């Protein structure tokens, strides 16, 4: 299943994977210069949703996204690709968020959290998904929500390509195991 999906993805068909594609884009396509406010306005919602899917808490996701924006704000002038920097920072903060989540549970308890949906299938899958470890959840979210190729995920998380593929495979296996319980 995983192999078939990978081979069908557009980024894989560009021989060499996402790295070459991004290099080409970075070299030959002139990107419009964005101000920090532009990036903040355009990316905030998407980053918040990605972070929420990984950490499973809306309030914690807001904290992590704000932290990512704060880090980017302090060195915005030196960042060549703000979108990529932001996504990488958000996802890595989310993966490392276990300790932080424990620390901030009390403070965030009264914050807004999205309620259950009206569809039992979705609620059941979400419940199982939130039981996975953050790094496996991150791989699944980047692959199946952000539609990124394993090479692109490897760049974002700072892992090897092989590691991403392995964790993607295991994440799905864990999910299936949870669903069969």
């Amino acid at each position, binding site marked *: *299943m*995983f*192999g078939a*999906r*990978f*081979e069908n993805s557009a980024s*894989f068909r560009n*021989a*060499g*994977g996402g*790295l*070459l594609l991004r290099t080409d884009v970075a070299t030959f396509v002139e990107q419009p210069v964005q101000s*920090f*406010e532009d990036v*903040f306005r355009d990316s*905030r*919602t998407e980053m*918040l*949703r*990605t972070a*929420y*899917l990984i950490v499973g808490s*809306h309030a914690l*996701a*807001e904290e992590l996204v*704000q*932290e990512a*924006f*704060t880090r980017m*704000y*302090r060195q915005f002038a030196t960042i060549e690709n703000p979108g990529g920097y932001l996504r990488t920072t958000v996802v890595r903060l989310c993966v490392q968020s276990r300790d932080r989540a424990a620390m901030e549970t009390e403070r965030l308890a009264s914050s807004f959290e*999205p*309620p259950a*949906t009206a*569809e039992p*299938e*979705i609620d059941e*899958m*979400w419940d199982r*998904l939130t039981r996975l470890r953050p790094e496996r959840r991150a791989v*699944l*979210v980047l692959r*199946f*929500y952000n539609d990124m190729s394993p*090479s692109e995920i490897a760049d974002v998380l700072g892992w*090897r*390509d*092989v*590691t991403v*593929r*392995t964790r993607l*495979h*295991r994440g*799905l*296996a864990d*999910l*299936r195991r949870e*669903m*069969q319980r």
Partner: protein
Amino acid sequence: MTDEELTRRLEATLRAKAAQVPEPTGAFEPTTQLTELGTGSAKPSRGAWRYALVSAALIALVVGVTTVVVLAAGSDDSSRPAAPGPSTTTAAPTTVAPSTTTAPTTTVPTATTTTPPTPVTSRPLPPPAWTEFPQPSLPSGTVPVAGFNAYLDRYPSAAADPRPLALTFTHNDPPPTEPANALRVEDQALSSGRQQVIVFTRLADDSVAEVRYDLVFMPHSDGTWRLASASWSQRCQPNRGHQDFTTEVCI
């Protein structure tokens, strides 16, 4: 549940839950966030205090041990002319003191004036590091080499020997020392070139046991080497998939 059904449900769930997150409002306020996050002028966390205390204790310990050693050495030297007796160590500082007070006045100026300035040598700069990681194509496992050869064309001084080249290509220059035997390099002579087989063993992965790169180097016209081909494969842990080197995924 089939694989397709699982991924379909997963995608539907992720989209539905993401859609529940409302669009945030408000502008960015960096100062407020910095204080909240403890990265600005906020007080350090308990962990930071603990590190500071441990560091201070270690420094004090090192300074104390050094002082004792220096005093002991001084007492050994000065105790020879002193009268023998049980109190040689306690008498040492008092006998050393006069000689040490006169010593700096004669030795320190000569030391500062006789030290020659360090000559500035103009050695050629080493080539910049190879920054791209091998990106194998699946299912063949072939790794593109054009970029690496272009790098060698720009910096031919780095292309003198296939073995360090292989380590550079796989980002193992210098080779790792921990864990022990984590990297195995086999050099094989071919009819017109050399083959370097690099095997990463003892991976911190309970699924993949070993990862292998087969790199074939051919001599270039200028006497240096170029990478003719590269391929990637892996071997799984016991009971986690194939036990030979292939490009199949381990479970």
